[in-house]
C-alpha cells in the first residue's frame, strides 16, 4: 500500500528526514517511536502533503500512485489521513459541516453521489457513540474550546467518518488519561480492517497494549534505525533509546 524509499526532506533549510525507508501493507499496524525531534511528525506531514516541508529526494508510492506529486487534498481523497499532533480550532464551522464537506468532496473526487443528510447524521451518531462522544459535540465548532483529550478524540471521529486507506496518527495518545486512551484505542481498532493500514506515532508503549502493532520502528535523526515486532516497544520502554542509538552509530 505504502512504499517509502530513501526519503529525504527538509523544513526551513534544515534537513530532517535523511533517507527513510518503510513499507506498509494492507492490514498492518506500524508503530513509529523515537526521541523528540527525530522527525516523526515531519514524516507524517510529508506524507499528508504539508507544503511547509520540502522533499529533496526519494520516492513515495501509495496504492500504485506517486504520492509526492499529489496535492494534499488529493492525497486525502486517495485515502491518506493524518490525525494531527496539534489539531486546529475552527470557530464558526461546526463539526458536522466540516465533516459533511470533507466527505462530499472525497466522494466527488471518486465520482460518487453526495451523502444524504440522513445517512450522514446516522453515520456520525454511530461513530460518535464508539468514541463515547456526546452528540452535542457534533454541532459544536471544530475543536473550539475542546480540551486536549477531546481534540484527540475528535481526530479519531474524523478518521472513522472519512474511513481512509492509510491512517497516520501523530501522538494521538499523548495528553490522554487512561480512560480516554482506551476509548481512542477502541476507535482505532474499530477502524482497522484487512484493507487498510495504520501508522501510529507514539512515545508510549501503553498505547500498544490497546492497539497491537505488527511492527515497531525506531526513528532517529531522520532514519529508521531499528525495526522489530511489538516486543521492541517493551524493550524501548525498559531500556530507553540509548542502546539503539549506539547500535546505529556503531553501524555508521
Amino acid at each position, binding site marked *: 500500500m505504502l512504499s517509502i524509499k530513501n526519503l529525504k526532506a527538509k523544513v526551513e533549510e534544515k534537513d530532517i528526514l535523511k533517507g527513510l525507508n518503510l513499507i506498509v501493507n494492507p492490514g498492518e499496524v506500524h508503530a513509529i517511536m523515537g526521541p523528540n525531534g527525530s522527525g516523526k511528525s515531519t514524516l507524517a506531514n510529508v506524507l499528508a502533503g504539508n507544503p511547509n516541508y520540502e522533499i529533496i529526494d526519494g520516492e513515495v508510492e501509495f496504492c500504485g500512485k506517486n504520492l509526492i506529486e499529489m496535492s494534499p487534498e488529493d492525497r486525502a481523497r486517495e485515502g491518506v*489521513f493524518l490525525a494531527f499532533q496539534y489539531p486546529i480550532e475552527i470557530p464558526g464551522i461546526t463539526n458536522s459541516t466540516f465533516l459533511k464537506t470533507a466527505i462530499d468532496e472525497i466522494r466527488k473526487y471518486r465520482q460518487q453521489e453526495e451523502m444524504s443528510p440522513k445517512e450522514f447524521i446516522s453515520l456520525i451518531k454511530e461513530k460518535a457513540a464508539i468514541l463515547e462522544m456526546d452528540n452535542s459535540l457534533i454541532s459544536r465548532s471544530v475543536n473550539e474550546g475542546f480540551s486536549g483529550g477531546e481534540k484527540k478524540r475528535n481526530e479519531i471521529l474524523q478518521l472513522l467518518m472519512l474511513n481512509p486507506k492509510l491512517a497516520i496518527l501523530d501522538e494521538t495518545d499523548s495528553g490522554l488519561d487512561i480512560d480516554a486512551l482506551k476509548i481512542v484505542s477502541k476507535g482505532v481498532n474499530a477502524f482497522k480492517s484487512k484493507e487498510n493500514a495504520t501508522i501510529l506515532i507514539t512515545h508510549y508503549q501503553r498505547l500498544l497494549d490497546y492497539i497491537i502493532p505488527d511492527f515497531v520502528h525506531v526513528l532517529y535523526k531522520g532514519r529508521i534505525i531499528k525495526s522489530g515486532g511489538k516486543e521492541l516497544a517493551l524493550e524501548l520502554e525498559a531500556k530507553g533509546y540509548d542502546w539503539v542509538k549506539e547500535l546505529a552509530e556503531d553501524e555508521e
Partner: protein
Amino acid sequence: MTNKYQINQDYLVKFADWKNSKNENSVGFISEIAENSKNLFAESKFPTTKDEEWRFTNISNFLKSDLKPATFEDFASKLIPESVFQNSLKNTKSIKLVFQNGFFNEHLSSISNLNGKVVLGSVDKISKEKPELFAKYFNKSKNTKSTFELLNNLFAVDGFFLFVPKNVVVEMPIEVINLIGNETQNLLVSTHNLIIVEENAEVKVIFQSVLDNSHTNYHNYFTEIFGGKSSRIEIYDTEESLINKIGTTEIVLEENSLFNHFSFSLSANFVRNNLNAKLNGEHIEAHFYGLYTEKQNEHVDNHTFINHAKPNCFTNEVYKGILTDNSKAVFSGKILVEKDSQKTNAYQSNKTILLSDNARIDTKPQLEIYADDVRCTHGATVGQLDKDSLFYIISRGIPKEIAQSMLIRAFLAEVIDAIKIPELREQINHKVFFSLNQREI
C-alpha cells in the same frame, strides 16, 4: 459671513437654492436647525489628511463630486426599484420604514402590530405633531459638531424617529431602509435620525443604506440614540455594496442599560463611521461590533469613541475585517475613562486579515485613563490566513477555496455569531462571502 472656505460657500449657495425647491411642508423644527447651523458651517473646515483624525481617509472625492442635495423632487419623481427590499428580512416579522433620498415614504413602509404607545416614523412629521418629544433630544446629543454633522444639519429634511416609552418591549425588529440615488445626478442625501428608548424599554433597529444607481451618491447620516435606565437596545448598521457614506452615531446611555451596536461595511465603496458613546450612568453593559470586508479600491474608516463617564461599566469593542485587492481600512478606537469612573472594564480589539499584498489597514487604539481601579485591554493584529490551519482543513480533502472560506468564517465568527437576529446573521454571512468573491460557507 466670511469667504473663508470656498467649498462651504458652494454648499451654502446650494442651500439657498435648495431651500426654495424643497417640500413646502417641511418648515419648522428641522428648518430652524438648518438656519441656525449656517454660520457654524461657514466657519467649519472640511478635514484633510493633515488632521489627525482624518490622516488615513481622504475626502477629496467627496469634495470634487459636486453633489446635489436631495430635494423633494428626488423623492416624488422616482420609481421604486424592486431592489429596495432585496436585503431586508423576509422570514422574520419586522416593521419596515423606507426613506427615499431622505424623505419618508409611508406608502412603502409597513408598520403594524405595534404597541400603541410607541411612536415611530418621520422626524419631520412627528416633530410637528409631538414637539415635546423633540425639544429635549433632537440635535442635543453633542455640543460641538463636525463639519459633516453641520452639513447634515443644513440639508437633512427628515429622518427616522423612534420613541419607545417606559417598560415597552418592541419584539419585532425595526428596519430602516434608506434608498439612495436618482437617475441623473450625484446626490447628497442627508438623514437625521433620533431614537429615544425610555426606562426598561427594549428595541432592535436595523439601518440599511441601499444604493439605487451607479452615480456617485453620498449618504450623510446623523443618528442620535438615547438609552434610558435599564433600556435594552440593539442597533445594526449596514449598507449595500458601492455606497458612499459618511456620518455619526451619537449614543448616550443611562444606568443599567444594555446596548449592542453592530457596524457592517461589506464591500461599501467609501465609508467613514464616527461612533461616539457616552456612558452616563453606572452598571451599563455595551458591546460594539464591527465587521468590514472590502475589495478593489474600497475604503472603510471606523472611528469610535467610548466615554466611560461613570464607574462600574463594562464595554467590549470588537472590530474585525478582511481586506483584499487594493482596499483600505482604518480603525481608530478611543476609550476615555474619566477620573471617578472606578471599576471600569473596557476591552477593545481590532483584527484584520489581508488577503492581498496591496490591501492595507491603519489601526490606532487610544486609551485615556484617569481612574486607577480599572481593567482596560486593547489589541490590534494584522495577518494572513493561518497556513497551518489551512493545511489542516485541506488535509481532509477539502479544496483550498473552501478551506479559505472556512477560515474566513472562523475569523469572523466572534462578530457574526453575536448577531442576535438569525435571519440577519445568515444575510450578513452571505454578504461577507459575496463581497470577497469567496465561496459561501
